[in-house]
């Protein structure tokens, strides 16, 4: 029986690859958008404008304080009530982008704040404007602190993207859920699902660890 199910599973492998593609598409889009919004948010959060700092802080708390599943349901079920109809795919990308952006905001803000104050003071003394300071002095140094947790955040993003299967996006997890109705071997089916996620996440985790080691060595040399 096990062999029969295994053959069945191998035959639905193209279906799984489609799911893999969907996971990559959803997370890839959210990765790019979330990184851009996150950097803007982080610069505002570490910036001089107090109202902007507080608004960004409240938004981050709101997103960090609620489960991602609830956020997806809010976007998917409540937005139509105020006239914004969304398909599952854009709803998933919006929810994931929002989540990722809020976490990257915190990472970027922490990285900027970690740059020693003297650097800024020296830049001010040299007559650089606020944007020049950010562009040439602060961000190039902050990126060292930012990069390892940023890649770590991408791992979380890929893993969190599994939750969008709850609103019917056919990603790897959803494919597994659909397949297990037909092939009642949960360990085998979700073992394959896990393997596919592992193939994406494990290299990323190692990349994050590598960056962390590398960046620390560089900064202690200075």
């Amino acid at each position, binding site marked *: 029986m096990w062999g029969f199910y295994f053959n069945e599973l191998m035959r639905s492998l193209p279906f799984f690859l489609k799911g893999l593609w969907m996971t990559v598409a959803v997370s890839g889009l959210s990765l790019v958008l979330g990184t851009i919004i996150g950097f803007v948010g982080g610069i505002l959060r570490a910036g001089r404008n107090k109202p902007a700092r507080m608004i960004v802080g409240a938004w981050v*708390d*709101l997103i*960090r*304080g*609620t*489960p*991602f*599943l*609830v*956020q997806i*349901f*809010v976007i998917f*079920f*409540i937005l139509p*009530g*105020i006239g914004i109809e969304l398909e599952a795919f854009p709803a998933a990308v919006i929810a994931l982008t929002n989540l990722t952006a809020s976490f990257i905001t915190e990472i970027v803000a922490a990285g900027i704040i970690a740059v020693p104050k003297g650097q800024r003071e020296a830049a001010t003394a040299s007559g650089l404007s606020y944007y020049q300071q950010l562009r040439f002095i602060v961000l190039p140094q902050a990126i060292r602190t930012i990069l390892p947790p940023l890649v770590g955040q991408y*791992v979380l993003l*890929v*893993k*969190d*993207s*599994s*939750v969008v*299967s*709850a609103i019917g996006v056919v990603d*790897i*997890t959803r494919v*597994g*859920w659909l397949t*297990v109705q037909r092939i*009642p*071997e*949960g*360990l085998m*089916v*979700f*073992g394959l*699902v*896990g393997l596919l*996620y*592992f193939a994406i*996440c*494990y290299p990323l*985790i190692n990349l994050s660890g590598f960056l962390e080691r590398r960046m620390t060595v560089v900064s202690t040399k200075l």
Partner: protein
Amino acid sequence: MLEAFNYRIILEYMPLFGQCFLATLWLSGLSLIGAVLVGIIACAMRLSQSRILRSIAGVYIESIRSTPLLAQLYFFYFGLPSMGIMLPEWLTGVIALVLNSGAYYAEIIRAGIQAISFGQIEAGIASGLSYVQRMRYIILPQALGNTIRPMLGQAIILVKDSSLLSLISIMELTRAGQLLTSERFAPAEGFLTTAAFYLIIYYLLKAFSGWSEKRLIFREAH
């Protein structure tokens, strides 16, 4: 949107929300205790002399960290029955949460212990402290001080992750929001109330995290 917001439905369902709030609390509380225990054991295995124990813990931690919780949850939910193990849903959910967070706790504890420099332990030995005294007065207070914040951070993640249990039809906060959506078609009322309850837990844990850090630093100074 807000003029259509039906506060009466929320009041009507408040007993259900209260019940589900308690369910979320005890499900995540139970998982938290289990996860810290699993984390301590896995960390001890990872730091042990035996290569076999080390690699078992390594495989466990890496495979949990590289796959999404939802896939792990379905793995147990669909996989255990196919092995002939019939468990109530809540127990399956708690097992998945414990094994998932346990891997993260193992890493947090390991980082906390390894952050203590060996000189501290040597100084303890040189001062004639026994093993228990070194643990009690030197290692544990510092390891706790290093880890209390990431540990509470993981507890917040655990509470939020427990929302995924609603997908295997366990009655908890997110499920209450889903019920309001399906029974009364009131997604806004349902999911915003759900989110509010999660925010209560989040802010309490966050405040506790800040307070405990201050206290631990204070105690270190003595």
